[in-house]
């Protein structure tokens, strides 16, 4: 089955091509079947390929598949080649499985929209590029996927292109991520000039032998790659594009701006973990950026009134957690949170999309309310997602993934008390804004009537994702409760285990994630179980405190159905810490000013005058072409006479 790895990538591309070429002439049902079917088939293939991969080599030896040589120029020979290991398997599982559910949801959601086939064409194209990104075995192919998903993000944010604001949001997303991409591509140039290859495996093998830990070139490269990750994953200071990207249809936000594309930065850092371990400063930078981001975005989320913007800031904040985990070397915790976050955040986006759709495109939470009785399925699934996001202890998957990160921020040798406290503060803020959203949207006085009830096509993905947000956490339990390490063992086939001071981590080799009996590895934290219990209790208490505070402030309160009145500080947080205004002042306006004064310099004047001279001649000569046949004949005759006169008289 493993040989069909290429088909996983090819199917969405084929669906996209088919819809792009023939979409106009296909009935809606056919478009939906191609769009949903291609991704669903990919998801089935991923399961088959994944099982085959796990059965054949329990040790997790990466599987390579080279399709063809892409370029071959003087030693530079990247191929169209895929590499399947436990990290990429996790990613392609999430991409295709969550992707298929979101595609299924999109079919009824987008049914009445113009450009139905265009929508599915772009969505399929996105899935294809995203799979290319995580399966690529060299950085060039990875970069192709990287830019491809950026393109699809642009196309889908501007899906309702008739409103200029959406087009503006799309351009902003493209431009801001481009800042990071430029840094990343320079990093790739450095890698190529040093190693003469872009093959990821070769570079990661060679790097520890050629670059000394902490050397300047390693730090530079790691920071440049980090720049790319920051742009794509919307971390401070390049986070400004993601809240605006909410102009996209809700399924797009769920798929691209919550579950998959924005976590590409997490993938990049995890994939190049060797480089980051060679550059401790850069890795520390990852943790600090993550910590700052999760607070900045969390605070902004509390003051939003647009339900999708709450979720957007929440996504930025949760990816901040993943960066924090990467930065302290808790690689598997980061990827675990990525997976669980993909489940519950896409669930929340789809739920919010249903609410927005049945309330006639109403985004303002203050104009909703009392929906829990009227939309029970959406409410209960949304509540499960909200509990997972706020990491309510013991029952939710979000608790197990986030607790792991907060614990590692303290316990890892790269962690610190500051990072740990930031993570805890973030947990409190998360619970507060999440339940503020739940209470405002679903409780209190009803201010609008739902126009219809979402059908099975929309509720089924919600239920499946809600189940995963609840049950997904039990594949990885902390060692003081249950001690299940299916996920971390699976990931640690590729990525190193979290560096815990003192004790060496020992693994029972050859543990298959499919056979649950293999989870017998010993993994003891030096700080002991007591410290972990205390840390977990604090985290749990803080998330419950956030819930209670939200309950006290927002449950059943008679808010007016309008935008709330904000003081200057609230306005500051509402505007996302005024990053947009800052960038406008510092970057945009000076550049616009410079280009304005530079508009009429001597070179421009030269070329403008050339153009105006040509224009003058054009006017004169055009007037001789008056369309009168006799006039032309006369001109011919006069010309002949003049020519003859000159010939004869000289």
């Amino acid at each position, binding site marked *: 089955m493993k040989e069909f790895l290429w088909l996983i990538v090819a199917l969405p591309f084929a669906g996209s091509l088919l819809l792009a070429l023939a979409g106009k002439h296909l009935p809606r049902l056919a478009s939906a079947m191609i769009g949903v079917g291609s991704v669903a088939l990919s998801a089935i293939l991923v399961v088959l390929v994944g099982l085959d991969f796990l059965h054949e080599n329990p040790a997790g030896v990466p599987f390579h598949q080279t399709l063809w040589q892409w370029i071959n120029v003087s030693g530079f020979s990247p191929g169209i080649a895929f590499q399947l290991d436990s990290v990429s398997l996790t990613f392609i599982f999430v991409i295709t499985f969550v992707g298929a559910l979101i595609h299924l949801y999109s079919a009824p959601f987008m049914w009445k929209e113009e450009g139905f086939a265009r929508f599915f064409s772009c969505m399929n194209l996105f899935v294809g590029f995203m799979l290319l990104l995580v399966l690529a075995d060299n950085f060039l192919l990875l970069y192709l996927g990287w830019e491809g998903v950026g393109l699809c993000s642009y196309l889908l944010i501007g899906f309702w292109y008739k409103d200029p604001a959406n087009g503006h949001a799309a351009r902003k997303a493209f431009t801001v991520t481009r800042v990071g991409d430029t840094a990343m591509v320079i990093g790739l140039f450095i890698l190529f000039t040093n190693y003469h290859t872009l093959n990821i495996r070769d570079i990661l093998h060679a790097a520890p032998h050629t670059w000394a830990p902490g050397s300047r070139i390693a730090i530079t490269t790691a920071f440049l790659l980090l720049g790319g990750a920051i742009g794509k994953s919307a971390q401070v200071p390049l986070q400004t594009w993601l809240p605006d990207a909410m102009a996209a249809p809700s399924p797009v936000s769920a798929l691209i701006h919550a579950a998959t594309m924005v976590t590409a930065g997490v993938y990049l850092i995890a994939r190049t973990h060797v480089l980051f371990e060679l550059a401790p400063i850069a890795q520390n930078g990852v943790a600090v950026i993550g910590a700052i981001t999760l607070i900045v975005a969390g605070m902004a989320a509390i003051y939003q009134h647009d339900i999708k913007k709450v979720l957007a800031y929440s996504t930025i904040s949760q990816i901040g957690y993943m960066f924090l985990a990467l930065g302290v070397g808790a690689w598997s915790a980061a990827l675990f949170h990525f997976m669980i976050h993909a489940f519950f955040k896409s669930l929340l986006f789809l739920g919010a999309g249903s609410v927005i759709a049945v309330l006639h495109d109403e985004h303002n939470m203050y104009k909703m309310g009392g929906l829990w009785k009227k939309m029970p399925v959406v409410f209960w699934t949304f509540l499960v997602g909200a509990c997972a996001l706020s990491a309510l202890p013991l029952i939710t998957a979000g608790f197990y993934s986030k607790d792991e990160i907060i614990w590692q921020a303290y316990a890892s040798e790269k962690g610190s008390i500051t990072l740990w406290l930031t993570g805890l503060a973030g947990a409190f803020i998360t619970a507060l804004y999440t339940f503020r959203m739940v209470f405002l949207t679903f409780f209190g006085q009803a201010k609008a009537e739902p126009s219809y009830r979402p059908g099975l096509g929309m509720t089924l993905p919600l239920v499946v994702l809600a189940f995963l947000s609840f049950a997904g956490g039990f594949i990885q339990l902390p060692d003081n409760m249950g001690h299940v390490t299916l996920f971390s063992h699976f990931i640690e086939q590729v990525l190193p285990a979290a560096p815990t001071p003192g004790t060496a981590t020992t693994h029972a080799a050859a543990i298959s994630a499919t056979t649950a009996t293999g989870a017998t590895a010993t993994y003891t934290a030096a700080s002991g179980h007591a410290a972990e219990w205390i840390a977990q209790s604090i985290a749990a208490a803080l998330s419950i405190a956030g819930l209670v505070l939200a309950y006290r402030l927002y449950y059943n309160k008679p808010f007016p159905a309008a935008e709330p009145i904000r003081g200057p500080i609230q306005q500051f947080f509402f505007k996302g810490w005024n990053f947009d205004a800052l960038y406008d002042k510092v970057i945009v306006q000076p550049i616009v000013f410079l280009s304005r004064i530079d508009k009429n310099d001597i070179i421009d004047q030269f070329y403008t005058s050339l153009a105006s001279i040509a224009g003058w001649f054009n006017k004169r000569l*055009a007037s001789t072409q008056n369309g*009168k*046949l006799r006039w032309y004949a006369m001109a011919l*005759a006069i010309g002949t006479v003049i020519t003859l006169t000159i010939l004869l008289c000289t």
Partner: protein
Amino acid sequence: MTIPMEYGLWLAAILFCIGLAGVLVRRDVIFMLMSVEVMLNAAGLAFIVGGAARGSADGQVMFIFILAMAAAEVSVGLALIIQLYQTFKTLDADSAGGLNG
């Protein structure tokens, strides 16, 4: 008796000018086509006169060429005139001035 070459050439020149004047003055395309024919024959006459003066058949050969060319030109011209009439319902050449710059 022989006619001096100059006479023939003058006749050709006068015929040519009449034809040219017809092309320039007339607006009816059929008359314009006829005037073009007059100009062609004037040129042919000049060839024949020149050939006769030199005692060679070259001028007459050239006239055959001109005749064949004129026949082809007339067939194309008449087809164009029919098209013009069908499109504009008139034979006025000035009415087909849609290509003015």
